[in-house]
């Protein structure tokens, strides 16, 4: 709509000016995407709006699916049978509760460099997301992210703690 208006205005300007000084037409930008407005009044791109966690529904997911978390081997992003079973149960919950989205969040242990662990976390989250999609969860309900090694749940520089930190967590969000 806005594009049409600007073109119209430019056309009128050209007709009216005739042999007088030509006013250059205003710059025509592409159609403005529908997007939220940020707190400062600025247009915010889709995907750049803060998310809200849903603690009550998260507790229900954990109770009904058994866990919101699956675990990985060192440097691995493949899902073992326990992880697949957990994700299958999560998928059933998500299909029974269609009004929430989930942020699938990958994590790494501290025994990796910072940048690589960001990539590894995304790899793990992507594996979990793909499995949920294969179980019938619509992909547009699932976000993927990585926390790298920044959010461990277990303190300790030992294999037991590291194993707890190599994980993907299904976080319900609005």
């Amino acid at each position, binding site marked *: 709509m806005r594009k049409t208006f600007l073109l119209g205005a430019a056309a009128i300007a050209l007709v009216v000016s005739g042999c007088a000084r030509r006013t250059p037409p205003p710059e025509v930008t592409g159609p403005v995407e529908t997007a939220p407005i940020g707190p400062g009044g600025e247009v915010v791109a889709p995907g750049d709006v803060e998310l809200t966690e849903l603690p009550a529904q998260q507790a229900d997911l954990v109770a009904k699916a058994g866990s919101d978390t699956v675990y990985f081997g060192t440097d691995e*992003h493949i899902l073992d049978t326990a992880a697949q079973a957990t994700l299958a149960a999560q998928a059933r919950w998500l299909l029974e509760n269609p009004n929430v989205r989930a942020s699938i*969040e990958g994590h790494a242990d501290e025994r990796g460099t*910072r940048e*690589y662990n*960001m990539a590894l976390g995304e*790899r793990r989250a*992507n594996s979990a997301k793909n499995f949920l999609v294969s179980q019938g969860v619509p992909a547009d309900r699932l976000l993927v992210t*990585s926390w*790298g090694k920044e959010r461990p749940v277990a303190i300790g520089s030992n294999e037991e703690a590291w194993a707890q930190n190599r994980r993907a967590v299904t976080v319900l969000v609005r």
Partner: protein
Amino acid sequence: MQNRHCERSEAIQARSGLPRLLRSLAVTTVLLGVPASAQEEGAPPVEVEVVGGQNSQLTVAVPAMPGQAIGRGIAEVIASDLRATGAITPIGPGGIGTYGQAQAASPAYGEWRGAGAGALVSGYVEPRADGRVTLACYLHDVTAGRMLANQGFTVAQSDWRRAAHKCADLVYSRLTGQGAFLDTRIVYVAESGPKTNRTKRIAIMDSDGSNHRYLTAGRATVTMPRFSPRGDRLVYTGTLARKPRVFVLDIASGRERLLVPGGQITFAPRFSPDGRRIIFSWANNGNTDIYVVDADGGTPRRLTSAPGADTSPSYSPDGSRIVFESDRGGTQQLYVMNADGSGQRRISFGGGRYASPVWSPRGDLIAFTRIAGSFNIGVMSPSGGGARILTNGWQDEGPSWAPNGQFVMFNRIARGGGSTLYAVPINGGTARRMPTPQDGSDPSWSPLQS
């Protein structure tokens, strides 16, 4: 900054014998800058080659400067800076005498020889009509009894520490032949709280830990801040909508913006050497690749596309090539490519895993993290040869170069313990801890300030 004097820096051809001062240096070549007033008319340049013992150090007296209250403070900053270089042993300002302003340019060399010093840093602070101050800085060869260099540095009174760092840089570079690096800043991530609920804030400080302040509030996870080539902006990895996102921050104003809008996972950014582009990693569908975008924003251009995690890119100082890490071959290794993404080839073959490469500002070396049981910092040539490991911690990672290419700062994580910043000289020497008020990680060394 204005220079009141510019000493001449021609090399002088050696005649007979070496000044005793220089025989004690551990470096190979020293160029002497001799001010016009001290040089004989018509004397040809001298280039002095010195081969010294590995542990020989040059002793430099740094007495309190006369005339103003900050004269003692300036001497303390200079002495601390020189000690931090690892190549110089300062004496004073405590425990040694001082001098009057008239002796700054013409000290009593015999007295300083008696104090056991091979060199002397002297000077004075002069107030100016516009409210600024000028630090006159002199370096003397006490053994030979002559001035080696002098320069004036004019600053706002509140910036007196920077004048002291500039004076220390003059002394260091004249005595060692290396480039300056002391008038610099460090940006890093200040960490506090338990590791399971860590507060991370971007912080900035002078290279000696002074003038420390926080640039972010600590509500969002922040990592990997890096300076722009002029030191006026940072790129870093912040968090938005629960995803890692690259931000560009203007240091003076605190204003920042998203580099790539639209909910994409972006991280590990660095500026190009001309400051006009930013390279970064973009993770999508289980794959991470390296992209480049104009620093002012725009459509990112993809540089790598191999399956796997390509990340941690760093430009060569001439902007023509990029070193990065990739696990496309199975484990993290270092690769070099042209700046347009062509010609990607592996350069690390040392038997470990190699990560977080950073190209030296001198272009001659690439620093990296080697993972072989422990994590340690090393350097190799851009073709991958001559790799040597510089540190011996349990987890040392994330190197960053000093602007003279002689020191590498890194993050040391103690097993079961905290995270701290260290700097290590590349030619052998002990890693030295950088003072921070809390734990710290992800250090980045600024360019030399002008």
